[in-house]
C-alpha cells in the first residue's frame, strides 16, 4: 500500500456530499481517527462550507457586487482599461458600420439581381426591420433590453435549458439586431444549435450571419470553426474543405489547426 492509498479521497467526497452509506461513514470515521492529515483536511472543508453557505438575500448581494464591479470598471476606463478600449472601438465601428451598410446594401441588391434565386447570401443584420427600435430605444416600455435577453439566455444555457436559451437568443436577434449582445449571440446560438440541439443547418446560418457582419473580429475564428463543423454534419464536404482552408488561412495558429489539417487531408 502506498501513501496515496492511505487517504481515501473518494470516501471523503461521498461523505461530504451526503452520498455515503452507513458503512462508508464508519470506514471514513475510522480513517479520520487514525489520519491527522485527513482530519485537518475534512475539518477545514467543513469550516469553509459553513463560512460560504448560501444565505437568504444572496441574490441581492450578487447583484450589488455586479453593479459595483461595473462601476469600478467604468472608473478604470479613465486609465485606458478594457471598457474604454471597447467604447472607443464601438465609436469608431459605428462609423465603419454606417459606411459598410451603404456598400453592403448596394452589393446585396446587385447580388440578388444577378445571382439565381436558389443562392442567397445571409441577410445582414442591419437590414432587419426592428433595427431602429433596437438602436434608438423605441421598444415598448417594460420589454426586456438586449442585456436582459442576453443574460437570460446565458443563465438558461448554464442551467442546461438549451431550448430556452435558443429562444432567448433568437428573440435577442429579432429585437436588437446589430447590438453588441446580438453579435456575440450569433456564435453562441450557432454552437448551441450545433452541439446541443442537433440543428447544423440553423447553426450554419448563424455562423454565416456572424461572418457577414462587418463587426465580427472578436469571434471570427470560432465562427469559422463552427461553420466547418456544421458543413461536415450536413455532409457538404467540398464546402467543408474550403471552410477549413479558410480557417487555416485566416488563423494559422488556431487551436483547431491540427484537426483542420487532418480533415483537409481526409477530404482530398
Amino acid at each position, binding site marked *: 500500500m502506498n*501513501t*496515496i492509498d492511505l*487517504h481515501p*479521497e473518494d470516501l471523503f467526497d461521498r*461523505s*461530504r*456530499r*451526503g452520498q455515503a452509506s452507513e458503512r462508508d*461513514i464508519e470506514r*471514513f*470515521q475510522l480513517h479520520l481517527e487514525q489520519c*491527522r*492529515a*485527513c*482530519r*485537518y*483536511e475534512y475539518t*477545514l*472543508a467543513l469550516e*469553509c*462550507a*459553513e*463560512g*460560504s453557505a*448560501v*444565505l437568504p438575500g*444572496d441574490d441581492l*448581494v*450578487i447583484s*450589488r*457586487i*455586479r453593479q*459595483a464591479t*461595473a462601476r*469600478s*470598471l467604468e472608473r478604470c476606463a479613465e486609465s485606458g*482599461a*478594457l*471598457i474604454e478600449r*471597447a467604447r472607443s472601438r464601438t465609436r469608431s465601428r459605428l462609423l465603419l458600420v454606417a459606411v459598410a451598410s451603404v456598400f453592403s446594401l448596394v452589393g446585396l441588391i446587385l447580388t440578388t439581381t444577378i445571382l439565381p434565386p436558389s443562392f442567397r447570401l445571409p441577410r445582414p443584420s442591419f437590414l432587419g426591420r426592428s433595427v431602429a427600435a433596437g438602436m434608438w430605444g423605441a421598444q415598448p416600455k417594460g420589454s426586456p433590453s438586449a*442585456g436582459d435577453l*442576453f443574460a437570460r439566455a*446565458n443563465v438558461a*444555457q*448554464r442551467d*442546461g435549458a438549451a431550448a430556452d436559451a435558443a429562444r432567448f437568443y433568437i428573440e435577442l436577434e429579432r429585437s436588437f439586431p446589430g*447590438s*453588441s*449582445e446580438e*453579435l456575440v449571440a450569433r*456564435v*453562441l446560438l450557432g*454552437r*448551441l444549435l450545433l*452541439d446541443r440541439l442537433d440543428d447544423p443547418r440553423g447553426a450554419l446560418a448563424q455562423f454565416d450571419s456572424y461572418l457577414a457582419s462587418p463587426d465580427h*473580429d*472578436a*469571434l471570427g475564428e*470560432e465562427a469559422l470553426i463552427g461553420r466547418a463543423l456544421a458543413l461536415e454534419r450536413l455532409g457538404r464536404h467540398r464546402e467543408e474543405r474550403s471552410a477549413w482552408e479558410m480557417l487555416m488561412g485566416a488563423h494559422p495558429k488556431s*487551436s483547431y489547426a491540427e484537426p483542420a489539417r487532418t480533415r483537409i487531408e481526409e477530404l482530398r
Partner: protein
Amino acid sequence: MARDFRKDPRLAGGSAALRQSALEDPADFPRMALLVRAAQAGNIAAVDAVIAVLTPTVLHVIRALWGSKREDLEAMARDGLVAIVMALPTWRGDCTLLHFATRIAASRAASAAPPAPRTLWERLGRFGRGRWISPTPWEEELAERRRALLRTFFGELPEAQGETLVLRLALGYSLQEIALISKTPLAVVRNRLRLAKEALRARIEADPDWDELWGDDA
C-alpha cells in the same frame, strides 16, 4: 474527548451539493471560452456575462476563506472581479475560466489584511482571543482561527498545490472535477493534494498555536 465526526450534522452534506449547482458547470466551458474571447476583444456584453457567471464563485471563495461575517466582503468580491476582468487578456484557454478566476480570487483573498477592530470591545476580544475573553462562541472562534490558518498556509504552498487545495476545500470539488477544471491529469491532482495535505499536517504540528486547534476539545 475526540471529535465524533459521525455525529457531525454537517456530514449530511446536502448543502454542498446545493452550492455545487450554483457554481459554473464544467460542461459549460466551451460557451465560457466563447464569451471570454468576445470579452477579450472588448465586447461589453460579454464582459458583463463573464462577471455574472463568476460573481457567485468569487463570493464563495472569499466567504470560504474569511467566513460570511466580514463587513467588506462585497468590496473584496468587487476588487477580485475587477482583477479578473483586467487579467482576462492573459487567459489563453490553457485552464478553464473557473480555475483562472479562482486562482486570482483566492490569491487576493488570502493576502487581504484582516479587518481592523473598530471598538474597544473588539480590541479586547482580539487581545484575549482563545484565552479568557471571547465575545464569540468558542466553536465560531475556532472556525475563524482555522480559516486564518488556511489563508496563511495557502500563501506558503507552491502555487499549484495551493490552487488544488482551494478548489478542494473552498469550492468542494472532487478530484475528478479538479482535474477537469484545471485541465490536469488526475494522477497529478491526486499527488498535489497529497503533498499539500502532508505539508498542512507538518505545518500544524510544528506550531503549538495551530496544533491546539485540533486538540482533544476541538
